[in-house]
């Protein structure tokens, strides 16, 4: 079965970037959460989440982003979300999450 979600990370001194390719839904959300939480765990920098190839995310995935943001804030770091496609940006607007994250 072709994997529906591919997550790659890229660490630099200033920030850690996670690139999200594919779909975040109930099937892939565990993988999504574990990746983001483990990246937060091991890095002390701001987090950039590159969503330019994120095709789909549901409320579970958005909840995981909120959880990630909370964890990051506790460590004094920010979460930047980049490259959102229009259909997904729409979900951030609907849920008001656009006001919580730095969206670039």
């Amino acid at each position, binding site marked *: 079965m072709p994997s529906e979600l591919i997550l790659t990370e890229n660490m630099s001194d200033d920030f850690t970037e996670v690139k999200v390719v594919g779909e975040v839904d109930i*099937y892939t959300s565990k993988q999504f959460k574990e990746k983001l939480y483990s990246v937060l765990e091991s890095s002390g920098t701001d987090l950039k989440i590159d969503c330019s190839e994120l095709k789909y995310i*549901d409320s579970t995935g958005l909840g995981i982003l909120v959880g990630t943001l909370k964890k990051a804030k506790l460590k004094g770091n920010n979460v930047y979300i980049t490259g959102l496609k229009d259909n997904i940006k729409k979900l951030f607007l609907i849920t008001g999450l656009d006001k919580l994250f730095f969206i670039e």
Partner: protein
Amino acid sequence: MMENLKDTMIDYFETIELILPFKAEYVSTARLTASSVASKMGFNIEEVEDIKVALSEVCSKLVSRGSKVVDSYRIVFKLFKDKLTIVFCCEDGTLNCVFDNENDSLGIAIMNALMDDVELCTKTEQLLLISKVLKGEKQDAI
């Protein structure tokens, strides 16, 4: 644009059903089937995406709750002349009113924003339904 909403209750003319196990891996099957049905009705790409997202919220919720009584749930696509209503059914009554305002606020907000009608509690067996109206002149497409 909404003046036709009442008329859409008549002219009910086609039903497609998909029966899926309570398993996370088949939620994407539901999305794919929904997108085929909705685009055939004449919904545009953005509207089809809205429908997929809303349907997926329901499927995910049902799958994450699951059932001890039955193995599967039923998604009924009701194709009206200018409205698609998606009814979710299951013989397990414990899945009635499965969304709760507190924990599912994100999902509920998304469904309400993307669909024209969301009924989170309906009759037993017929758990809940979501509807989207076909705007514009595309309703002749089918």
